[in-house]
């Protein structure tokens, strides 16, 4: 059985801040406050008050995915799974690229013993975001659960198996995990620009059209990316973390120490890790900034994931390339 505590801890950590969504949303501050307040109330176990806040927020912005999602979470915690399923389902229809609603649908289905439906939802969640760790962890648990169920059937032990129904992790916020920025880009596109494009997009040009850039810069960038993947594969956490710039944008704006701790436990906790980078594309933006997109094949003793990843690297004063942003998709 997989250890769920780790992912729960991640979620709780994530609760402190608002997540990338709030940073991106260009809505009035009062709206953000409303959501933040509702989250605080939820965390304090004051479900009813939290629900009232969210409803108030929804009255102003009925389509808002963040508020709708939060409402789904509150309803789930209140045990109103029927309505929660409705909300999350609607969210998957309106914002098919968000992985979190699928994840939470899966959690609810699993709690109802509908493992096959849960599996379908999680697989959908991963299809939207191949590196969405929570969905992977939940899917891992679910496969183990399904396997156990299959074994019970094989051994004719399946008389209403009361053995501890392991709960999957409910995600309480959108935009947690490794893919917050990419997630945000689509649903709120009317009001915001994806963060990646925000800093002077006009300055970005492919390396070939930028003769001023040092010719071996993209080679150096690639070397750095490979070294990063190698450190990760070696589970050499210090070397791995050293690849991240001081101003690295942690997922969801999580405080750096908390993020580092999370990474440390995740990486050191695995028995084996293999990260393979393939088909990299480097786009230099001046000589101090580069965007690298590649296919990342991640494989540990417990998970496998393949997907596209984009790293934004910056060159520090001492000439080293370091990761400033990391996003899936």
């Amino acid at each position, binding site marked *: 059985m997989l250890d769920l505590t780790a992912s729960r801890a991640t979620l709780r950590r994530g609760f402190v801040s608002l997540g990338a969504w709030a940073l991106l949303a260009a809505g009035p501050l009062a709206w953000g406050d409303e959501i933040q307040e509702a989250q605080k109330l939820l965390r304090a176990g004051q479900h009813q008050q939290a629900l009232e806040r969210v409803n108030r927020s929804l009255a102003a912005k009925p389509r808002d995915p963040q508020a709708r999602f939060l409402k789904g979470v509150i309803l789930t915690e209140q045990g109103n799974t029927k309505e929660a399923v409705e909300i999350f389902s609607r969210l998957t229809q309106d914002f098919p690229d968000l992985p979190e609603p699928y994840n939470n649908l899966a959690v609810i289905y699993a709690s109802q013993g509908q493992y096959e439906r849960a599996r379908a939802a999680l697989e959908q969640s991963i299809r939207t975001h191949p590196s969405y760790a929570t969905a992977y962890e939940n899917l891992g648990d679910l496969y183990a659960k399904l396997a156990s169920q299959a*074994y019970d059937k*094989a*051994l004719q032990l399946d008389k209403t198996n009361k053995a501890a129904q392991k709960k999957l992790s409910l995600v309480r916020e959108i935009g947690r995990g490794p893919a917050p920025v990419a997630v945000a880009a689509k649903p709120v596109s009317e009001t915001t620009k994806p963060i990646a494009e925000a800093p002077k997009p006009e300055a970005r040009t492919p390396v070939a059209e930028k003769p001023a850039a040092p010719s071996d810069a993209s080679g150096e960038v690639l070397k750095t990316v490979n070294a990063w993947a190698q450190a990760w594969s070696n589970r050499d956490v210090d070397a791995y973390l050293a690849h991240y710039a001081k101003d690295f944008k942690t997922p969801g704006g999580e405080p750096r120490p908390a993020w580092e701790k999370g990474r440390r436990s995740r990486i050191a906790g695995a028995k084996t890790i293999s990260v393979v980078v393939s088909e990299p594309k480097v786009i230099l933006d001046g000589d101090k900034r580069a965007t690298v997109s590649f296919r990342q094949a991640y494989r540990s003793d417990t998970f496998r994931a393949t997907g596209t990843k984009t790293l934004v690297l910056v060159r520090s004063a001492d000439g080293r390339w370091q990761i400033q942003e990391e996003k899936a998709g």
Partner: protein
Amino acid sequence: MRLAPLLAALLAASAVSATGATPEDRLSGVFQSIGANRLDEALKRIDALIQDHPNFHLAHLVRGDLLLARTRPLETFGNVTKTVPAERLEGLREEALARMRAQRQRPAEDRVPRHVLQLHAGQHHALIVDSKRSRLYVLANGGGPPRVIADYYVTLGKNGIAKVREGDQKTPVGVYHVTADLPRRKLTDFYGSGAFPINYPNEWDRRLGRNGHGIWLHGVPSDVYSRPPRASDGCIVLANADLDAVAPFIQVGLTPVIIADEVEWASAEAVEAERRSLAEALERWRTDWQSRDTERYLAHYSPRFRTARQDYEAWARHKRKANGARGWLEVGVSRVSMLRYPRERDFVVVTFDQDYRSDGLSSVMRKRQYWVREDGHWKIIYEGAA
């Protein structure tokens, strides 16, 4: 059970296409996918198989492995981590092994079981059980040595084979035949789609003091597709679908059921040569009896000969008296079957219609003799009414 040979055997079992009709063929297809490292395809195939056969417990075990493999490396086939009744898990592993080995180790086309030397024209089929492989072969009679036309996975006794006494939960080894077709409505669910008792203990068993009764071929309860290789109280158990497939081949009172440790496969020519040598001995026995030269007739009998009631001496005395009193006698022999007895060396059960006419008594009977080769000559060691 060792893991490595088990996995090797399972993965090597890929002779059969996945589109094959039987659940066993389809399971083999799943292992084929696993062997080719197409795990998603394997899972799809096993899901489809379970959809059609939800009671196929072995399929659920394989599905469990395929799902678990997505979360961690497997350590064994049937990688059940919680504490479960060990014999149940072991039973499924053994079933997997038996089924996949049978899929892989098909008898060569030009080979026939050495046990069936001859069936008579009225016997359309014979059944042979290979205990070691948990397999039942159906042989068809029709010109030359009978050939295998179908084979099925079978469950035998919990304690193995070579039944000796009542309650030993073993399946007998020997030459038998089906004695009845029990009506389904008289059977409980336990026997599944039918039951065909066989004549254990036969004449030879009784002579050796073996006892017990109620050895049947039968089906399985409705909540399972099949049972582990060694699970019955001595009966030969087939999946209901398989029993339904075998049932049309069975002629009550006629269809032989040979249960062997292992089927010996031989060339048709070798089997035919053996058949001919025994047929010639049988013919000499017939003509020598007709000659009324009692000593020549008695020379066909082994000193170890015994009937159900008499030993050789008593029986020889009786024959000398009876045969000598006849003015003439004629013996007709027809509808002959010759079945080699498993486990015993050169030992054949010969059954035929005997038409005996004389100036005294005349009779027509079905007779059974057990022939054994002693010092290079075929001798009769038992005879009686069949």
